[in-house]
Structures are given as structure tokens and as C-alpha cells.
């Protein structure tokens, strides 16, 4: 088990009903972290083209996570 700080942005924040959660989890990848969030937040889902960052750097759903990491979930972007 390790601690992962999760932050939700924009639509994800509204789906989850919160902007952050500290997970105690055995998740090994970003994808695992999102699955754990899905268990915890029943209205959360993953729209196509959602993006992720780990420790303030853009990452992939397969990126490995370690104790103390911060994972950011970004819904599909719509700038401009």
C-alpha cells in the first residue's frame, strides 16, 4: 500500500464532487489509480481524450506511480 495524492480538474472535479483525494492504494499505474477513484466516486467516468500528469509533468495512463506521487486527472481540453 502507498499514498497517492489525486487532483481532479474541471469536469472531473464535478464528476467526483471534490478537487482532491488522498488514496491509500496498491495501484501500480495511473490507470490503476483512476480505477480506484471510480470505486470511490460513483459519478466519475473517463471521457475519451482525457489526459494525465504525474508530479506536474504530462504522463500516460500506463505511467507507474510510487508512494508520495501526485496524479492529476485532466478531462478533454477545450482551449481557445
Amino acid at each position, binding site marked *: 500500500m502507498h499514498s497517492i495524492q489525486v487532483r481532479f*480538474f*474541471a*469536469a472531473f472535479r*464535478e*464528476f467526483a464532487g471534490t478537487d482532491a483525494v488522498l488514496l491509500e492504494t496498491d495501484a501500480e499505474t495511473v490507470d490503476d489509480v483512476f480505477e480506484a477513484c471510480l470505486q470511490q466516486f460513483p*459519478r466519475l*467516468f473517463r*471521457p*475519451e*481524450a482525457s*489526459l494525465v*500528469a504525474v508530479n*506536474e*509533468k*504530462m504522463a500516460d495512463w500506463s505511467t507507474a506511480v510510487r508512494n508520495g506521487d501526485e496524479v*492529476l486527472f*485532466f*478531462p*478533454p*481540453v*477545450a*482551449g*481557445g
Partner: protein
Amino acid sequence: MKMAIQQGGLDMAAVTASLQDDRCGAAVVFEGRVRNHNEGRDVTGLEYEAHEPLAVSEGEVVLAEAARRWPIRDAVCVHAVGTLEIGAVAVVVGVIGDHRGEAFEAARFIIDEIKARLPIWKREHYVDGPAEWVNCQRPVID
């Protein structure tokens, strides 16, 4: 070259004031404005939210890519965040070059990439229903 995120509606002239170079014969400026309709629905205004550190760093990457692909002399992009009214300016891209071909092409490239790649989200307010985050497949429950 400069990428910035700024609170509230933008002013094109202020954003592009730094684009001065005596070698340049061409400036192309794109201004993205809040329009009163989107995909058939009447829009009354919107909010932009950004993850600012990553929006800035990814915007800088886009500007650098443009400068590598075209012989431009300078480029700037500023994106607004916060609540914007109809007609307000949400994003400005400015490019200067010796000739207009490269300035037009680079400006188009930059705004296309900015819209597709930067962690910036748009929540539209509608005449006929609750606000929605744009590009998310299910409506947000307000």
C-alpha cells in the same frame, strides 16, 4: 517568445505590443472570442479553467515548434481564464515574420495546437439548460 495565462478578457493590442522587429514585413494576429452560440445552442457566457503551470509549459513547447517549422521572428500567445462575457477575447496569438506566408501558417498552427494540447477547459452557460464542460461526453450534473 512568450506564453501566458491571464485572468479575464484580453486586449489584442496589449498582447501583441511586444511584436516589433524592423526585419518583419508581416504580423498575423488571431483573436478567439466568446461567441453566443455553440453546436446549435445559445450561449450566455463561459468560464475557462486552466492548470496554469502545465498550460504555460505546453504553450511554450507549441511556440518553439512553430519557430522550428517556420522562419518567424517572434510569436506570443495569451489565454484567458475565469468568467468571460459574450464577445470577450479568450485567446490571442500573434506572429511576426519577414513575409506573410510564414506568419499566416505559424499563427494557424499555434492556435490549432493550443486548442488541442493545453490543459484548459471551457464551461459554457446556456439559455436553455445547465452549464456544461465542453468536450466531455456526458452533461455535467449542475
